[in-house]
């Protein structure tokens, strides 16, 4: 009998697992996909909000594509229970799906603080396509949008909101913006940059209530004046969707704990993406990296292993990049490690900032800020990722970078980092373009 794979979750991790299985087995196995939503790419929702793309552009696995990949689907259905002893998955309509192996890739959900009115009308999250549609419908030219939360997710939709000619105010409970993506110096520079582009920022603001006032929303704070908004977006964090695993016997900490093959505590059950707690490449510790690249890599590794390969995963590299008003902001690895040795430099005339963090002569974290049209920025973004990923000893190039943290390219090339990275592949074989798999 053909092996029965069940993929729970149609996001990036699930999609990549399906593609990797089919790259390996050319259709020999049975694949069932359970997905509460029609599969789409969350990464591109901000471009849909900004009207840069049509809604149709966000979908990933079209019915034709699913047929080509020979995937059975349970779309619009949620997994509600997992019986790992019997190898059975229960869905919310009572359907029971039997499996030989299963991937938990149920992603995460947006969370809102327990503030009165935070669930009221005109208050949105921006995480799912359905939520994005709500925001799209609610913003007009001149709408005053208040974004609650100044983290990565908020920043990914900032350009889109400005492109719609809405007025934007960002409020953040922490004393500064992007607290989990850049340091104090970087945050100050970004605040100054956004100020120049007409974005108002209120940091250190604790929201106490959201009230309805003549069709608009009044936001009250512990200190300072109220804000009146046409639309409120709560970008106040996400948490992994794990509840349905209660009683399954799958070990869960902050996420589903997985080994280096991305297997959970139950041998034929894998986890990938935002729900998985796997190895952090730099620290070696278990971590939940709820980012797109980790979901992709996890998904591909699980797919290969489900298809019978024996692929060990070295770990995921924490990384984020976001562009706001033509300013690139990116950080990699252990960029906020207080124990690391750090070099930092600001070039105010180019609005550029670099911070490099070290353990011995290995780069373990990096932060970069610079104009998107500056050749220095575009050169250094990828190479800083490469240096953090390779973790190779940089020898004399560490001293070189201490003198000039902006000369990343020379250090990257002459330290032989390209040669170090070339064999460091995910699955150890050539990839095929997605459209060619089926």
């Amino acid at each position: 009998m053909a092996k029965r794979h069940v993929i729970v979750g149609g996001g990036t991790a699930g999609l990549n697992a399906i593609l990797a299985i089919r790259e390996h087995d050319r259709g020999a196995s049975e694949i069932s996909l359970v997905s509460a939503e029609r599969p789409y790419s969350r990464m591109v929702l901000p471009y849909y909000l900004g009207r840069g793309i049509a809604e149709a552009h966000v979908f990933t696995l079209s019915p034709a594509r699913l047929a080509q990949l020979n995937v059975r689907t349970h779309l619009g259905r949620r997994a509600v229970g997992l019986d790992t002893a019997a190898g059975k998955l229960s869905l919310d309509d009572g359907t029971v799906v039997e499996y030989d192996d299963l991937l938990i890739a149920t992603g995460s959900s947006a969370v809102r603080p327990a503030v009165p009115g935070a669930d009221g009308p005109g208050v949105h999250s921006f995480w799912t396509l359905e939520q994005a549609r709500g925001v799209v419908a609610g913003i007009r030219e001149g709408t005053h949008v208040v974004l609650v939360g100044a983290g990565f997710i908020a920043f990914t939709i900032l350009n889109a909101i400005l492109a719609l000619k809405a007025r934007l105010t960002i409020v953040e409970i922490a004393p500064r913006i992007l607290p989990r993506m850049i340091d104090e110096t970087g945050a100050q520079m970004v605040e100054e940059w956004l100020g120049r582009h007409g974005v108002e920022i209120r940091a250190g603001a604790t929201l106490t209530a959201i009230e309805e006032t003549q069709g608009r929303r009044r936001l009250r704070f512990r200190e300072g004046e109220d804000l009146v908004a046409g639309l409120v977006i709560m970008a106040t964090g996400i948490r992994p969707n794990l509840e349905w695993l209660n009683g399954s016997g799958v070990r869960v900490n902050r996420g589903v704990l997985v080994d280096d093959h991305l297997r959970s505590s139950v041998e034929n059950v894998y986890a990938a993406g935002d729900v998985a707690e796997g190895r952090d490449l730099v620290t070696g510790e278990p971590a939940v990296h709820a980012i797109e690249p980790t979901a992709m890599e996890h998904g591909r590794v699980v797919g290969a292993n489900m298809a019978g390969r024996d692929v060990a995963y070295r770990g995921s590299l924490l990384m984020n990049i976001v562009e706001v008003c033509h300013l690139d902001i990116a950080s990699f690895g252990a960029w906020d490690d207080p124990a690391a040795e750090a070099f930092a430099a600001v070039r105010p005339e180019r609005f550029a900032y670099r911070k490099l963090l070290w353990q011995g002569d290995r780069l373990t974290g990096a932060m970069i800020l610079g104009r998107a049209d500056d050749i220095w920025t575009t050169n250094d973004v990828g190479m800083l990722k490469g240096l953090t990923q390779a973790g190779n000893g940089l020898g004399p190039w560490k001293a070189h970078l201490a003198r000039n943290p902006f000369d990343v390219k020379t250090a990257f090339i002459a330290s032989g980092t390209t040669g170090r990275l070339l064999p460091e592949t995910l699955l150890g074989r050539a990839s095929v373009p997605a459209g060619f798999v089926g």
Partner: protein
Amino acid sequence: MRCELACSYMQTGTFQPARSVIRVSPFEAHTSYAPYTCTQCAEAWCMTACPVEAISISPVGAKVVLDDLCVGCKLCTIACPFGTIFYKPETRKAFKCDLCGGSPACVGACPTAAIEYVEAETADWLGTFAAERSARHREWQFAGVEAR
């Protein structure tokens, strides 16, 4: 730097080395130069990272950006560890070396035949060269020789 001029002209229609996807680095205090570009690596970090399947493989084996699908999210620019996929602010799309469809402009423009277009094993040719030249330069500096 003729390769950069030729590349930018071929890729963007303008002579802007800053828009070239082959980039020359100076070594040995600007007495040696090395051009660096995409290795068209087999597993293609940029291609697997793209959330909308906007990177494909061209008939000549280059990983190429499909402009009508790319949304400009920059994920490929942090997925590629070699730093060889870029972003064009004018078009808001990713852009990278596409081997000029099989006839790379940089090769023809190089006056010293330092760039060849041949089938070869992927290797870090440049790293070895740059490391050696840099080490030599450091020795000169230690010996008190003004390396200019």
